């Protein structure tokens, strides 16, 4: 269950951003996670509150964009959607494809609940 370690890494980044903004409450954390990243989104959502307890991120909603697995065929050039364990070109069946999406593991954005933090941002101009 490496999602716990992933959550810890995620929390450290989120808190780093929160600290730069001087915020006390994080409302929403948006992530982009592909099925081939090796992360199970539901496990991540379950584990995050355990890791974030007692921090400004403890009430955060985790929102995860599901990213489809897409491949570009090096044989016929076509682009198609694929299954995680059958990365094949839908048009010609070739396995000589490049993965163009589905491997993402990104922190997209953090939403803060206290407006004060934004005043601080405007003041410092960081």
């Amino acid at each position: 269950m490496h999602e716990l370690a992933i959550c810890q890494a995620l929390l450290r980044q989120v808190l780093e951003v929160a600290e730069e903004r001087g915020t006390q409450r994080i409302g929403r954390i948006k992530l982009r996670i592909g099925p081939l990243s090796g992360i199970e989104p539901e496990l991540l959502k379950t584990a995050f509150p355990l890791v974030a307890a007692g921090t400004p991120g403890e009430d955060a909603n985790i929102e995860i964009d599901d990213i489809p697995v897409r491949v570009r065929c090096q044989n016929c050039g076509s682009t198609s959607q694929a299954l995680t364990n059958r990365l094949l070109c839908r048009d010609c069946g070739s396995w000589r494809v490049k993965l163009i999406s589905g491997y993402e593991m990104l922190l997209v954005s953090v939403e803060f609940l206290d407006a004060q933090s934004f005043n601080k941002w405007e003041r410092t101009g960081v």
Partner: protein
Amino acid sequence: MCDSCGCLGGTDHFHVSDSVVQPTAGGEITVLRGILRENDHQAAHNRSHFDAAQVLAVNLMSSPGAGKTSLLEATIRALGARLSIAVIEGDLETENDARRIRAAGAPAVQITTGNACHLDANMVHAALHKLDLSSIDVLFIENVGNLVCPAAFDLGQHRNVVLLSVTEGDDKPEKYPVMFRAADLMAVTKLDLMAAVGDFDPALAKTHLRELANAAPVLELSARNGMGLESWIDWLIHEAASCRRLRSAHHGIAHG
């Protein structure tokens, strides 16, 4: 020398901040950074250690009991003086595997992870400082036996080798696509047990690997009776040589 961790530093050093945080409308800050960014920086730092010492770093992964340590013992013995090997051993508990490697004649550092199901770049970095990289050609990082979690963490390795033993079933690449997609070489191990197992089809295992868009070589071998070991040794020698060539060429450009 790096002030923070006492190592030799490098351009990809993980302490360097590269904040790309930008404000967007409302109360939202766009970040767009890898979740495992911290680990990735550390991994890049480890890789710069390996490159500076012209060491080929191999992350060895498989399920528990697929024969990682046995393959390493056989490799150390088969290589003799041709390449010098060191091993970082990752296990939840015990020094058993490190002891086996030392008995086979190579230096080994044991990492015990407690309950952690994978190695990360920080653990490997701590272990690196217990090894003399200048006297090593190939460093094996034997990951925790697990076909899921280790795949998500870059350790700074140059190559991933994934083992699949014939006792496990030929559909493992289909069941664990993240791990097998990352393989730079897949070794089918315990070939000596093939007859006893009866229904493992190496060709099918290879097909499943190809269906992950992975063109990696597939070797069939037995650490116990030596079958197929020559191709494995040839691959290692070839990879170590190209790693050295690449690094010394790079070194020449950077400092020549």
